[in-house]
């Protein structure tokens, strides 16, 4: 069984009175009032964030009707408690207490004794406000509803609780001269049910308390203070009532060490002392060393109040007992350490390591864990390790610490061990638990960076391969195209065998070049090991082009083309048709109104197409009609020509032009005179405001602009005399056909 009193800390647990348990016969009673819980706070660094909900509730006292109260709750769904949840902090912390006001009028929070401006406005019902204060002094303090217009009545309705600020030295109230074994929080308060029934209108001059409470309970439901012979008990007393109240002990004395959280330079000893409303008092009681187990020492209101349902024997309810329980066997066992981990377990020493461990004294004396430390690789004498300071104080603690870079810098690569242990309030250091980590600062090596192909069209995938090796394990790889973005910022490489688990890995990626303009690029890559070390980068060149197709007929035939059309017999590859310094070219014979053409079909519809070929009309008889020698075709649905190159003989000259289809019809360049082998280059794009260019022998001849060619895409081209050849005869030579997306080919 546990009581209000606990070893060095307050549990605030709900429990039955010692006397009730021993007698085995609790009186018929309503559910006892909730004992003060501990406020739910989270500690982030040195900031402790707590929340309080001010809401209506009920105080149930044995033998009495339930009394409506206003109290602070410890959770969003929890009941209002009287007194409110105890806020426990450590000196030096910044407290951020958020008030959720759920009573029907404005309410604020006040912290008497703290350097915090008074809030006399508060927050509206349903709203919240956070109060920030730094607890610079240890001590016992009261928090309560602030002095809004209804604040006085709110406090009398139950809106108060304790704020305990502990010094950094556990087991002391202020310093080592105020050390104690057991601690009890005693919040004294008064209830006048007539006031609680009508808090807004009740005339406060008539306030006459019926119930006198210790921690919200009236005797016989007040909780006993369990302690042991020879122990030193700290009584943290707070008068949250409306009257001065003298509290005293029978058979014991109390040494007054502080009032209102201010330690006395010279404590003094009394049996009973008067607390004014709002006053706090800290006293130490030394339990006699030789008294028997079970001895009870009353702590009571020495004014001997006679009112209340408990009658004159219960002193209005403000009565409890300091009770001696069996002496605890001396605590010689230190706390146990478990759940220890170091993260990351594999490190390259570039970041601090996070150490986590759970240290518990629950099974070894149930003291508090008051110190902890760690050692690297070699365990030293107790207390000489690196201290872990945050999070101490409870009987089971989850601690975290950061092993700094400076500590790692002195360690060689390889496996290392961290040892952690803790110390309890009795001064026992427990056994150490350990966790391992490995330092690996060796960077991997990379080689064999290859691109397949190393020269690719913009819409072709390029396979990227790389070999990486490391004394440990390769964990990742990355590549980048162009400038090096820095280690870790590249595009990921995948392991060829599917997993990063070996000291040597083949890494790969499929590069997508769509965003790249034709040109030469530097592709770089590097690998990283599991410890986080990146290798130096390695680079290789990648050439991106946009040539769809080219053929100069040097193969001796037209097999590079997809097919032939017209009368294929009319076509031949011969040296007589070679142009531009090559060996072979294509000759097309026009006879009986027919000829042949070669056709190339691409793998996709293209929205940009530039065609360059050498053309020699010298051997042809054309007449003045336009003859088509090249078409670029849109093969979707009904095939149409996106654009075509036409030739004629006019005015003793050979001429060439381009006809381009657009919305609403065709547009054409003017006829351009050519003579002998000529490089004809046409640039076309599909756009709502597209353009078409014609260049001859590398010289731009004409640009047609604002053509709505958006309805056309080029899939296939035909090179050769085609269409209406009636009246034409002779031969036309073609050579060095190149088709790109947009790159100018030139002569």
């Amino acid at each position, binding site marked *: 069984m546990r009581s209000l009193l606990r070893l060095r800390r307050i549990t605030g647990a709900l429990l039955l009175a010692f*006397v*009730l348990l021993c*007698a085995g*016969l*609790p*009186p018929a009673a309503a559910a006892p009032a909730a004992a003060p819980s501990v406020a739910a706070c989270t500690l982030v660094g040195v900031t402790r964030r707590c929340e309080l909900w001010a809401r209506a509730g009920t105080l149930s006292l044995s033998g009495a009707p339930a009394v409506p109260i206003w109290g602070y709750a410890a959770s969003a769904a929890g009941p209002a408690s009287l007194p409110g949840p105890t806020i426990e902090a450590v000196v030096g912390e910044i407290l951020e207490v958020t008030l959720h006001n759920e009573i029907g009028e404005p309410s604020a929070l006040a912290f008497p004794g703290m350097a915090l401006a008074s809030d006399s406005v508060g927050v509206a019902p349903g709203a919240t406000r956070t109060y920030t204060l730094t607890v610079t002094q240890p001590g016992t303090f009261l928090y309560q509803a602030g002095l809004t217009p209804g604040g006085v009545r709110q406090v009398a309705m139950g809106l108060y609780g304790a704020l305990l600020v502990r010094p950094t030295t556990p087991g002391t109230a202020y310093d080592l001269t105020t050390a104690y074994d057991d601690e009890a929080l005693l919040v004294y308060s008064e209830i006048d049910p007539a006031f609680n029934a009508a808090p807004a209108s009740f005339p406060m001059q008539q306030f*006459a308390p*019926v119930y006198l409470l210790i921690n919200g309970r009236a*005797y*016989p439901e007040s909780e006993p203070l369990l302690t042991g012979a020879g122990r030193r008990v700290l009584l943290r007393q707070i008068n949250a009532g409306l*009257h*001065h109240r*003298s509290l*005293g*002990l*029978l*058979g*014991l*004395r109390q040494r007054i060490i502080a009032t209102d959280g201010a330690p006395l330079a*010279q*404590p*003094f*000893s*009394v*049996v*009973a*002392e*008067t607390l004014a409303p709002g006053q706090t008092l800290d006293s130490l009681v030394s339990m*006699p060393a030789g*008294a*028997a187990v079970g*001895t*009870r020492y*009353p702590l*009571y209101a*020495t*004014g*001997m*109040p*006679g*009112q*209340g349902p408990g*009658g*004159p*024997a*219960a*002193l*209005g309810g403000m*009565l409890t*007992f300091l009770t001696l329980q069996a002496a605890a066997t001396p605590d010689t066992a230190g706390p146990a350490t478990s759940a220890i981990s170091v993260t990351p377990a594999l490190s390259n020493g570039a970041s601090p390591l996070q150490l986590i461990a759970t240290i518990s004294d629950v099974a070894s004396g149930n003291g508090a864990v008051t110190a902890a430390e760690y050692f690297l690789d070699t365990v030293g004498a107790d207390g000489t390790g690196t201290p872990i300071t945050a999070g101490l104080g409870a009987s089971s603690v989850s601690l975290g610490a950061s092993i700094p870079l400076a500590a790692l810098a002195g360690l060689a690569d390889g496996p290392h061990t961290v040892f952690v242990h803790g110390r309890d309030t009795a001064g026992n250091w427990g056994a150490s638990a350990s966790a391992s980590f490995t330092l690996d600062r060796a960077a991997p090596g990379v080689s064999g960076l290859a691109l397949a192909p190393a020269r690719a069209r913009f819409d072709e995938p390029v396979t990227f391969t790389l070999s990486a090796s490391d004394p440990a394990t390769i964990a990742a790889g990355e590549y980048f195209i162009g400038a090096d973005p820095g280690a870790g910022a590249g595009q990921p490489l995948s392991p060829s065998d599917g997993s990063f688990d070996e000291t040597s890995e083949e890494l790969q990626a499929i590069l997508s070049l769509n965003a790249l303009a034709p040109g030469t690029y530097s592709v770089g890559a590097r690998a990283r090991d599991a410890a986080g070390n990146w290798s130096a980068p390695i680079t290789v060149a990648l050439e991106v082009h946009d040539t769809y197709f080219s053929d100069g007929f040097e193969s001796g035939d037209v097999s590079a083309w997809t097919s032939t059309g017209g009368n294929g017999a009319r076509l031949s590859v011969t040296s007589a048709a070679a142009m531009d310094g090559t060996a072979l070219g294509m000759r097309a014979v026009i006879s009986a109104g027919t000829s042949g053409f070669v056709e190339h079909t691409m793998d996709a519809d293209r929205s940009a197409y530039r065609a360059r070929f050498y053309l020699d009309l010298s051997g042809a008889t054309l007449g003045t009609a336009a003859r088509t020698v090249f078409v670029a075709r849109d093969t979707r649905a009904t095939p149409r020509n996106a654009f075509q190159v036409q030739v004629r003989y006019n005015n003793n000259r050979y001429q060439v032009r381009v006809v381009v289809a657009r919305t609403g019809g065709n547009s054409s360049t003017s006829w351009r005179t050519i003579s002998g082998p000529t490089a004809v280059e046409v640039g076309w794009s599909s756009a709502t405001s597209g353009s078409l260019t014609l260049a001859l022998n590398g010289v731009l001849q004409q640009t047609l602009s604002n053509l709505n060619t958006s309805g056309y895409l080029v899939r296939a081209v035909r090179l050769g005399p085609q269409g209406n050849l009636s009246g034409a005869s002779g031969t036309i030579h073609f050579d060095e056909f190149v088709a790109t997306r947009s790159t100018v080919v030139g002569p």
Partner: protein
Amino acid sequence: MRPGTPGPLIRGLATFVAFVALLAAVRGAAAQSLAVPPNGIVCTTSADDSFALTATDGYISLPDGNSVYMWSFASGTGPFQHPGPVICVDQGDTVTITLSNTLSQPVSLIFPGQSDVLANGVPSQPQFSGATLTSLAPAAPTGGSVTYQFVANEPGTYLYESGTNPGVQVQMGLFGAIVVRPAGHPDWVYADASTAFDPAHEYLMLLSEIDPYLHMALERGQSYDMGQYRPRYFLINGRSFPDTIAPNGAAWLPDQPYGALAHIYPYDPVTNPLPALVRYVGVGSADFPFHPHGNHSRVVGRDGRPLRGDGGEDLSYEKFSLPIGPGQTWDVTFSWHDAENFSPSNPIPVTVPNQQNLFAGAYWSGSPYLGGTGTLPVGGEGYNQCGEYYHVAHNHALTQITSWGLTMSGMMTYTRIDPPEPNSCP
């Protein structure tokens, strides 16, 4: 402080009683025991430090003419008295107190400030019937008795009171004081030479209160709702002013043997260097802010411990308002210092109006100087005897220097300062 005017008849009665009290205080009434000094603490001692207390009932007189039914402790088979006897022992004595109970409820004794109290030979512990607390100490049933014993380890002033139904029984009057004197030094408060006092000027101020309706209900065997508790009478040593300034053992207060007049001489470094000692004990329901007029009092001890630091530092302090809380004892020394030494040769720099323009109080001696007397106005009451001074000492919660609304009564007494000897004081 000017007298109030509650009404000519009552005021006159109070004044008459005060006069008689004052005369008797000095000269002693015939019924007094010669062993009992007229003023100052009245100790009950025992050669073997064994005492008998009988819980019994009786009546006390109050200055508004009422008698109130009381419960109290008589000394053995002696007559009813309120409060109970002042038990005086020496440090280290084993004190045995046998309680016999004639009341209709069980009665016990608790001794705040004492440790290791035995009741019938075993440690005195709270008593339970099943799970119900019945008493803070073993109780004597009606007609029965319990013997308590403790060693008075520490000198000082202490309280004894009933621990059974204390919310009612203590209010009914079941309390008394204990004085423990340092071994070998009855003229010190504590085992500390700096707490020396003049043993001829030692006073007890046991401060209490009465709700007459509670007492009337118990007198009639009726129930009483303690939620209605409201004290109307406020007492020092069981008496209400002006009975407080009547002598110990005054014949007209047969059941209230203890007065509260502090009767001292001015401080003199040679002839009167030691202070008077006033032992305050609070047995009310709340703090009584007791306020002796004149210069400050010095608080030298609390609840039976001297005010000394761990290193022997003197932590005593001066106060003119002593907040005597319930269950608390305050040991206070007092010396009256004549700060101005006014005398005929060092006159008070005030032009005294002629007698037709003077109002003379009841204690006016005719001269403003200590030891001086003079012509009193015609019809002046003339209670002053030998040019002595009077300072009122009273509860400064002024609603408590009343008796059921009657002002200038209640928790109030005087400090009387006689002129240094030789004087003409009786």
